[in-house]
């Protein structure tokens, strides 16, 4: 069974230099309270594995939305993403040499994380064939021809931590996601040594219909109850 922890405990758990997967797409599905706390922690040198750098401004007028906070506070030394165009600070810090940015096709990125969590040796995808992605030695094991078609064998991705966001989380750790927030949370919850979910709302085990559980609680190590967070 997962343990309930405070935001402070979640932050304390994450050391400088950790590799951190964060769910979300342009901020939608980021675990905002954990990220906010982490952005104020003074910790850094993180490897951030996240689809994107979110956005400088949030939809509710937030300054620095989601993971953009970590980037703005220069806590990220290495970013693995698929698209960083909506957060100009990423390109700026990269050009300054302050941040390494590796860009991977989005479908491959999702599937590589899934492979990391599912014990698969890699992902054979036609995506990226004939492009500079072929040269990404850290991510591409080889180019293979199978039955006359070329594929890139992309390596699995894992991390020390996965920080994800769930709308309803039961005490057994089962997660139900609202709207489009589930995006990368599903594979990420399987592919990190420690998985922390920020819950909009916590319910008793059994309150989510077993058929409607999206992420099984067995993947979750810690729950931050976002509805009653304490520092």
């Amino acid at each position: 069974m997962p343990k309930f922890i405070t935001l402070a405990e979640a932050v304390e758990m994450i050391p400088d230099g950790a590799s951190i997967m964060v769910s979300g797409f342009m901020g939608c599905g980021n675990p905002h309270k954990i990220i906010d706390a982490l952005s104020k922690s003074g910790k850094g040198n993180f490897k951030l594995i996240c689809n994107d750098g979110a956005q400088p401004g949030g939809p509710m007028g937030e300054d620095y939305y989601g993971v953009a906070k970590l980037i703005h506070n220069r806590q990220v030394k290495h970013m693995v993403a698929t698209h960083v165009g909506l957060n100009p600070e990423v390109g700026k810090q990269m050009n300054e040499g302050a941040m390494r940015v590796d860009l991977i096709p989005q479908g491959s990125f999702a599937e590589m994380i899934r492979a990391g969590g599912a014990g698969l040796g890699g992902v054979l995808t036609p995506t990226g064939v004939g492009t500079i992605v072929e040269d990404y030695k850290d991510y591409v094991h080889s180019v293979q021809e199978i039955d006359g078609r070329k594929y890139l064998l992309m390596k699995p991705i894992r991390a020390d931590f996965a920080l994800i966001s769930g709308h309803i989380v039961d005490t057994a750790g089962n997660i139900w996601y609202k709207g489009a927030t589930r995006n990368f949370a599903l594979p990420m919850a399987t592919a990190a040594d420690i998985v922390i979910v920020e819950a909009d709302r916590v319910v008793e085990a059994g309150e989510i219909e077993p058929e409607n559980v999206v992420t099984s609680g067995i993947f979750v190590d810690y729950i931050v109850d976002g509805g009653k967070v304490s520092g």
Partner: protein
Amino acid sequence: MDKDNIKSYIIARAAKEMRDGDIVNLGIGMPTMVPNFLPKDVKVIIQAENGLMRVIPCTEETCEPIYKVDAGATPVSVAPGGSYFDSCTSFGMIRGGHIDVTVLGALEVDEKGNLSNWIIPGKKLPGMGGAMDLVVGAKKVIVTMEHTQKGEPKILKNCRLPLTAVNCVDLIITEMGVMEVTPKGLVLTEINPEYSVEEVQAATEAVLIVSPGLKPMS
């Protein structure tokens, strides 16, 4: 035509490529306007690669930008019969050939159907996002863009920018005309009556094969 009129003209033509019931993924920017130009008897199902099916604009009541945005981070909702799914499922749909059409912009496209639309080295680093998967996986790939960039051709013999994918584009639609990518090269099938074939060719680096059935673009 001014900038806005050019966009509308291009997208109105792209909308005619849609068949009723098509499952469509629309790139950020101009392509998102496609639904506004669909004929009344054509309804398409819009997929957003961040995990939404049957995307529709949201209303004051249904907008929840914290929970529901499309791949361009625009707040949206889903129609009855819509659904949400994770990114692996989404790109399984895309890579697996379950998306009928994708419409997206380009920095460059060439006569072999190669596409460059994700990076200008040293200048612009947005990233490929889902574009590389979309152009490899979708059954039909339509590029919509202005024919030139500051007077320079964008339709080339060979793309010079890093590629998004090789030999992936099926159709190019610009304000000057409609070009099909064929094994023989680019075939100009429709032309904007405001331009002559010579003018279109002059604005194009690739050699255009003029279709014997060349029609006015509409």
